[in-house]
């Protein structure tokens, strides 16, 4: 499945974090690559939304919507902000 850019989840991230996030810097917990969220690889057609590092393909973030709730997993990130 083709990946799109982090820009595509700008709305979801804004909803969750309360602010524009696509220009925030994410640091990959596996390889240390620092990139703007808008550049990350987003797989939106999985059962959830999976965000991967464009350098090492490591999973950075996972979002799963269940009804009105969104489960957020940011364990792949070293930092975000």
């Amino acid at each position, binding site marked *: 499945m083709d990946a799109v850019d982090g*820009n595509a989840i700008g709305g979801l991230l804004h909803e969750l974090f309360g602010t524009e996030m696509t220009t925030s810097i994410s640091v990959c917990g596996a390889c240390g690559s620092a990139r703007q969220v808008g550049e990350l690889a987003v797989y939106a057609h999985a059962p959830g939304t999976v965000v991967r590092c464009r350098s090492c393909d490591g999973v950075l973030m996972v979002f799963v919507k269940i009804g009105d709730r969104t489960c957020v997993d940011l364990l792949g990130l070293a930092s975000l902000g």
Partner: protein
Amino acid sequence: MAGTALRGRLTWQVAQVLAVAVETASVRTIMLDVPNWPGHQAGQHVDIRLTDEDNYVAERSYSIASAPGEPVALTVERLDDGEVSPYLTDELRAGDELELRGPIGGYFVWEPNDGGPLLLLAGGSGIVPLRSILRHRERTGSTVPVRLLYSSRTLDDVIYRSELDKPAVGVEVVHTLTRHQPPGWSGYARRVDAALLAEVAWPASTMPLAYVCGPTSFVEAASQALVQSGYPPQRVKTERFGGTGGT
């Protein structure tokens, strides 16, 4: 739920369709009246939400086609197996309501003081946010030089054709038609790759700023070729919309 858009928050609201314009056989531009629209930047998008009678919800993102200061317009290509786009292109009429939130995104945006020269690479409906950038440049009186390379399947698939046939001063528009060319066609007739970019793109030595938008395969090929030709990766902004699209 619809609500007043508070500063800093992103809330769903109801927009009204002012008009729907035919761009090509499968593409429509939807002009919207969005109450309390906070204004947008060139290159941003909105999320559209459709809810059916069983409360099944489908959300999609669409780039804003209009310039900052103009009413919100979305240009939508119908995907035959799509859940959302066939409704937007075939069913929506003036006076209908549409649920949206936005504007969204700060990554794939351009402001005149970002400078250039600008290289805009569009695959199919990837032209939409780049059209917003072109209109914004013209409306702000920017003199930043622009080259647009636009890949379409056929001439009839070219979106905003009449507008692009009369580009503003300082804007060069180059078409490539990948599937069928009309008799006497003098433009390019091949896919965007390193060889084509070597002919069309600004040399890396001029410190250009590139925006690449289209199907994933188009964006991958074009952006990798630019970086290999010496464009710094941070000067190549990409917006992939997945699928194979009309390039």
